[in-house]
């Protein structure tokens, strides 16, 4: 397929296997203009809002912090700092419900808002970024706490330092998930911030060309961005067909360049880097204004929310506070989803804060998102394989995941699954396929860890045995030498024989003790949860061991 990109250039587009045409449901939240949320009385700032190591608090309860002040960071290589979204007092650092599929609590800084919204001293704006060293810009982006705002939340500064020559910068404005419109509104409302961010990124990466990919169901965003481009810069806005999940990083790269990111690899290997439009705008704020990431756009939508809209919200505001500002609940929804319908997850409570990665709160009615009944058996119809954008065979993977045959699932390329949900959507048996694949992935990781631990313990054990043997041999050699020196005067052979036997017995006993000790040090795994039969066997062996030990004594 060929499309005309900005500046009349004809670009070839590629397609990927499968994909879905979904009802986009974007109209609802586009009825009202973008507004700013009012500051609530309290903000909850989880320490892990990014992929990598959690941040460590730099403040303690009772401290007063100013807007934009760094309140948590970590020296670990993969981490992003967290800043205070407004001024106030640190109330505590405690476990709080966080937006995570597990529904578990996580550590968070609780900030009591003082209402003064007093700014801290921000780093000076860097306006002539073209003449500034790249490392300075990367440092600025890192310090601003910017992560991938499309949902992946990978620290942006790390992604911008690929250590490889980058030819193409791709900006992801596809926003292919139904219901979500915050990127669309950002592109319409803040094209200059996005384009400035693009220019900064292009400078950092030295990319020859930049392609901004936007699905064709957002014509206003496309035309706005195009009208803000200057004639001579190598930035093109490319209209791509609306097809879920074309906003997936690998899918978008495929559409725009025809290349496939190698399995287990990174886009940088192809000379490509991909960033989301919101991330790009945040980077512009950090460089040109010194402003850290303390707010983001969030779509509030679904028939369960009175006034569907988009808001610029401070990070840390709870879903409950935010939905109240959007007119509250209508009572038409029994669920609350963070993210889009395809890849988002359900919250069990609305006391969960908005974090850097939360792009949407969706409270759908039963008509919009019917709650599905129990799953039936797989009839192997293969529709899942037909729509899979990665060209997997979900029906086979399901079979093996269910049987917990983890090696088989991996053999069917489990780890290439992007969890887009296409397979589950079309399954006539309503099997939660993605759920099974997530399960198989976590199981595989756990098993891998266990194997590594066992391997490590075994190595330590072997090493210890070898060391003991060596020490023993050295000691024996010493003794023998000593004895030889002494024995030169009066050789008493029979006694020596008895001595040797005794020594051998002592050595054997020591070796056994050492083995036992080493075994105790390795994680006691295989003797947990034994069946009665196995227990009996173990008891028998123990008894035998006790007897032989007794015999020798």
């Amino acid at each position, binding site marked *: 397929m060929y499309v005309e990109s900005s500046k009349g250039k004809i670009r070839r587009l590629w397609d*990927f296997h499968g994909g879905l045409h979904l009802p986009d449901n974007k109209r609802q939240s586009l009825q009202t203009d973008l507004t700013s949320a009012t500051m609530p009385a309290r903000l909850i700032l989880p320490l892990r809002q990014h992929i990598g190591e959690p941040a460590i608090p730099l403040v303690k309860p009772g401290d007063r912090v100013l807007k934009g002040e760094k309140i948590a960071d970590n020296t670990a290589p993969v981490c992003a700092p967290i800043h205070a979204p407004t001024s106030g007092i640190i109330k505590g650092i405690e476990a709080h419900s966080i937006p995570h599929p597990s529904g578990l609590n996580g550590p968070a800084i609780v900030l009591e808002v003082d209402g003064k919204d007093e700014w801290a001293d921000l780093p000076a704006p860097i306006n002539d970024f073209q003449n500034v060293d790249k490392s300075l810009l990367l440092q600025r982006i890192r310090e601003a706490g910017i992560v991938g705002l499309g949902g992946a939340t990978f620290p942006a500064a790390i992604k911008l330092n690929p250590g490889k020559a980058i030819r193409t910068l791709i900006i992801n404005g596809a926003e292919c998930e139904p219901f979500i419109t915050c990127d669309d509104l950002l592109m319409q409302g803040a094209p200059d911030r996005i384009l400035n961010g693009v220019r900064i990124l292009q400078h950092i990466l030295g990319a020859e060309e930049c392609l901004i990919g936007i699905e064709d169901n957002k014509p206003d965003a496309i035309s706005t961005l195009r009208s803000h481009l200057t004639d001579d810069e190598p930035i093109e806005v490319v209209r791509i067909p609306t097809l879920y999940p074309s906003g997936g990083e690998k899918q978008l790269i495929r559409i725009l360049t025809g290349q496939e990111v190698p*399995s287990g690899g990174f886009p940088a290997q192809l000379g490509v880097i991909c960033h989301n439009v919101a991330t790009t705008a945040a980077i512009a704020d950090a460089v040109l204004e010194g402003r850290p990431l303390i707010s983001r756009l969030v779509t509030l939508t679904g028939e369960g929310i009175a006034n569907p809209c988009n808001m610029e919200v401070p990070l840390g505001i709870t879903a*409950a506070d935010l939905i109240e500002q959007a007119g509250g609940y209508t009572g038409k929804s029994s669920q609350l989803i963070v993210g889009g319908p395809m890849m988002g997850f359900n919250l069990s409570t609305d006391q969960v804060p908005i974090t850097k990665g939360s792009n949407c709160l969706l409270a759908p009615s039963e008509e919009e998102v019917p709650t599905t009944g129990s799953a039936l058996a797989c009839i192997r119809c293969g529709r899942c394989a037909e729509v899979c954008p990665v060209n997997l*065979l979900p029906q086979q993977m399901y079979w093996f995941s269910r049987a917990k045959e983890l090696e088989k699932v991996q053999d069917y390329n489990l780890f290439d699954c992007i969890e887009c*949900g296409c397979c589950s*959507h079309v399954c006539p048996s309503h099997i939660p396929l993605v759920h099974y694949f997530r399960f198989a992935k976590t199981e595989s990781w756990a098993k891998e860890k266990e194997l590594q631990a066992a391997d490590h313990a075994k190595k330590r054990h072997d090493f210890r045995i070898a060391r003991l043997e060596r020490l023993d041999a050295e000691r024996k050699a010493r003794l023998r030498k000593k004895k030889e020196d002494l024995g030169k005067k009066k050789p008493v052979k029979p006694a020596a024989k008895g001595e040797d036997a005794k020594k051998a017995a002592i050595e054997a006993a020591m070796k056994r003790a050492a083995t036992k000790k080493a075994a105790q040090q390795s994680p006691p795994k295989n003797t947990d949860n034994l069946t009665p039969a196995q227990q009996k066997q173990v008891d028998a062996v123990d008894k035998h061991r006790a007897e032989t030990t007794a015999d020798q004594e």
Partner: protein
Amino acid sequence: MQFQTFSSPHTDRPNSVDKVMLQVILALLPGVLAMTWYFGPGVLINIVIATLSAVAFEALVLKLRKRPVMPTLYDLSAVVTAILFAIAVPPLLPWWLTVIGMAFAIIMVKQLYGGLGYNPFNPAMAAYVLLLISWPIPMTSWLPPVVLSTNPLDFMQIVSAIFTGSPPTGLEWDAITMATPLDGMRTNLDQGQMISEIFQSPVWGDFGGLGWEWVGNWFLMGGLWLIYKRTITWHIPLAFFAGLTGLAMITFLFDPESYPFALFHVFSGGAILGAFFIATDPVTACTTRKGQLIYGVAIGMLVYVIRTWGGYPDAVAFAVLLLNMAAPTIDYYTRPQVFGHGDNHG
């Protein structure tokens, strides 16, 4: 506020198993009606007996297995098995053979393997083969199509024949039954006749047996509708016909007097029904695209081989069951290339 939680994706699911099965049943209707038109109400009576017994056996086994009964019955898969079986057997088949067939199909072939989705063999075809081997005479005693019938039976005569197992009073089985076109062709060829001679007989139409050939057309319409509705894809049917007609054409070109032309094979016996409705049974077929092509071609070729050189005049059931066995292996060796695993890395 507290909320319920579900697994993603959170969407209105467009497909369901009962919808798939219902579409298959609807697609079978034109063919079923055409069969009833040509072979009398025995076809419908068989369908009723088969459906009732299939549903009863399914409910019984589910109860024994302590599984929910109603959700499974609602998926309509037992009904599809029953209809496919009932239209594959002769219209006057004694009722108890139909019941035995369904018991075997549902209990042994389907539920003992774990029920819908777990059965390696097509239940309807397995039952058909069981009966064909065990009771060959009633399983091959077909009525002539109504256009050729010298002794047309009325409704009550048909009912009594099915339920008593004996021919209507005053008539012998031989007087009311007739060999199928495939059977007739085989017999005549074995007697050393030329095909041009054989086609002199008034029992032949344009492509195959008079009457018979048009039943296939109606199944073809239903099958094409299924492809249009995307309930099935074109891969298996097309590959099936390619395998069947490919071999038929080669042998026909060698000796047109001993080997009937390709369309004869398409419009005779269970070819069209098999291609669109039986070989495409998702549970027992291949699921990869490439695998489906291999699977279809292999069934088509096997049908031709058994029809021409094997011991039975028709072979769809045998061919399908044989390839059911091969399906997992074919699937294994025809996995598609996963995104990022090729050499398309720029």
